């Protein structure tokens, strides 16, 4: 685990502040993410983890600060533009199309890569058909990678939760992202499913070369698989460093366990 290749900074978050009316969700957050690392964001409930991810993702527009991706700085960019820059994400509460098959759900992740228009696709002839075949190859590789071949044609709503999480990951991978944002990939899973998911995250990092930013509650998972950890509490950064450093940081211990007054 120690000798992972992590290179230069790909994502830089500088002095981000985000307010919803009078509520300060994030104040003055700064951290960076290096090429090919697994970077965790942890913190108690309401610490601002998902808000942070939503800022990177372009869903929220922070009032202050900037985010740069491979040296390109942006303040106002929508989620589509961010996606086009190679950032994909999964969702805490699974925004999958429940009635659609696993295959179709993952195929939606290829949306940005499609060049034919909706009318060509509706007729499914010529260029549209060739394109679908090409996209299907990519999707099939992901299905193979995530070992969900038995459920290819199963409607997602019928699958157990752990498998739905995997499909969610598959859809994000279908974008061929360079940076992957995972919002609580292991929430609500049992131990075995968590182990499987951890393995997939490490494999994605390894085989696809994705840089991964991960929000997670389960501390043992975070400590096992991440290279560096950012700790948030009440919208402020209270710790940043290797899992070992973070674990011994008195601020972090206080935020997680509380202290006697």
């Amino acid at each position: 685990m120690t000798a992972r290749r992590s290179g230069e900074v790909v994502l830089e978050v500088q002095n981000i502040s985000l307010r919803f009316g009078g509520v300060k969700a994030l104040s003055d957050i700064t951290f960076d993410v290096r090429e090919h690392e697994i970077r965790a964001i942890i913190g108690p409930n309401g610490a601002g983890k998902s808000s942070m991810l939503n800022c990177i993702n372009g869903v929220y527009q922070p009032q202050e600060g900037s985010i740069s991706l491979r040296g390109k700085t942006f303040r106002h960019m929508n989620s589509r533009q961010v996606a086009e820059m190679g950032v994909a994400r999964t969702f805490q509460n699974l925004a999958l199309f429940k009635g659609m098959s696993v295959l179709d759900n993952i195929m939606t992740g290829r949306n940005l890569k499609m060049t034919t228009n909706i009318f060509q696709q509706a007729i499914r002839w010529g260029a549209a058909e060739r394109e679908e075949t090409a996209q299907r190859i990519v999707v099939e590789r992901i299905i193979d990678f995530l070992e969900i071949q038995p459920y290819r044609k199963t409607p997602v709503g019928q699958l157990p939760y752990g498998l739905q999480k995997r499909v969610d990951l598959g859809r994000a991978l279908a974008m061929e992202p360079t940076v992957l944002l995972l919002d609580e990939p292991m929430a609500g899973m049992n131990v075995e499913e968590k182990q499987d998911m951890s393995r997939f995250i490490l494999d994605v990092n390894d085989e696809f070369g994705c840089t991964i930013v991960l929000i997670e509650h389960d501390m043992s998972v975070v400590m096992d698989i991440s290279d560096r950890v950012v700790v948030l509490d009440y919208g402020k950064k209270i710790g940043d460093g290797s899992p070992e450093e973070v674990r011994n940081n008195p601020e972090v211990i206080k935020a997680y366990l509380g202290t006697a007054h």
Partner: protein
Amino acid sequence: MSPTFPRLLLDHAARRPSAPALREKDFGIWQTLTWSELAALVRAMACGLAEAGLQRGQHLVVIGENRPRLYAAMLATQALGAIPVPLYQDAAATEFVFPIGNAEVAFAIVEDQEQVDKMIEVRATCPQVAHIWYDDPRGLRNYSEPGLAPLDALVAAGRAWDEKHPGFFEAEVAKAKASDVAALFFTSGTTGNPKGVVHTHETLIDRAAAGARFDKLTADDEVLAYLPPAWIGQNIFSYAQWLVCGYIVNCPESAGTVTIDLKEIGPTYYFAPPSVFENLLTSVMIRMEDAGRPKRWLFDRAMALARRVGPALMDGKPVGALDRFRYALGKVLIYAPLRNTLGFSRVRVAYTAGEAIGPDLFTFYRSLGINLKQLYGSTETAVFVCLQPDNEARADTVGVPIEGVEIKVADSGEILIRSPGLLKEYYKNPAATAEVLSADGWYRTGDAGFMDAAGHLKIIDRAKDVGRLAGGANDGALFAPKYVENKLKFFPYIKQAVAFGDRREKVCAFINIDLQAVGNWAEKRNLPYGGYTDLSQKKEVCELIRDCVQKVNADLATDDKLAGGQISRFLILHKELDADDGELTRTAKVRRGFIGERYDVLVDALYSGKSEQFVETAVRFEDGRVGKVAATLKIVDAETFKPVGRAA
């Protein structure tokens, strides 16, 4: 020139180069490998192996699911006159140590990371394993073990080597004699270390051909290969007979997709142990229970008719015109769609072997018009000894001896066989060889049985397991544990059973409930339970199982020979018997002696008259970790019946 497996391959490649040999579902599509492509692949692999130093007579282990490139690896090994040793892919690393050490294996071709990890573990005790090649590179990118390389590298190196040494491959294939050793199969063995069964090209090819003639198999048949290739049954059906007949072998996408793949392929020739047929039936029944009332009514009516008429139709017996019409109607509405769902639409010949099959289960498939039959054989006999002819399939026999086979029953009741398919020897184990092979060529099967009036062989148990009760009311009564266990296992609620009784005053049994079937049964009765252990000790479940046991007793009471062996007490085990804990063999047979020792507290409790017993057991998880399960087990008395002589 006498046939060897590599020569059969080259023959197919020459005669029908573009015909499909193997198919594998990969990335959602069935990908075909033709005979000529396969021959080219085997050629490259063989050259690569030769360059790596594989010598004539050396062994090479092949570990993995049914994968075209692993089949090619076996052929490539045989092409060099070396010997492939297929091992069970789901076995733990420690179980590989004995065979790899015993056969002095220095070369391994394995499927994926899981198997590579195990081989690396094995290396600690078997440092002679110099080369490990893997088919699927996933997750292996950062491995830097010496001698570890992808199969692609072996093939590429082989191609280059082949160009520099033209004619080498042909010369190697030509050197082989039919009497050379073709493969080494390690038998799972219910006691002691496994034994390596040595088979020659001659023995395997002879039996494969005899079986093919018996069932008129052709190059047009299709097979789905999904059981472990280390099991001789799978090896014969998808390797030996594949090369003899030249039919198409299909490899499923993954273990989880077998039922989907089965439906897509629709094999014409099918082989499975009874447990597979049982699981298929259970899944159908569970889905039917969830179906709407009209569908269920229709299904029940159609199946009742099928049970009454179907087997007679299969056996070519006379059936009335009205029933024929009804059956035809049932076929349109139920039987044909059901067969399609099961993946049996095109099945011409289906076999079950390895264990006894329940009469209800057997009849179910035959009544649908599926030509399910039984056969008798073992690793040592290259499978084909007795087969049931098309019109003579029965649940309680295993068929008639086929061409080349002679059978006699020893005074002890043990069955002896002489056939061209007998093993050459047990590898490096002349004592064990001498024990089973007599000088005049008779092989001792170790099975007890007899030939019935119709000339069919009937097996009752392993000869050494047939015992007698001692003391008590039924002193000296015959006790065939497996016969009793099988009768118990024919109930859907009972997954495994272990009977004790030899040299004891009565018969007692351990029962393993079937979680799926009993769980469903409990759900229907609104019976809450928390997991396997809890369910197994419910009062209602104990009563359910007691009914089953008493039905078996009533059945045994009608048997002339085995009436004394009725079960008087039993308990339901708190955990499933598992091959990982050494309680079952890899082919899911109970290891009675081992279980008796492991649970000696429970055996004592059964015989000492206690009404419950506390027990704590270590369990081994798939990843090798060890946990504990503890429970207090209820011990239940079952009613036994007076023997009723058979109706005169």
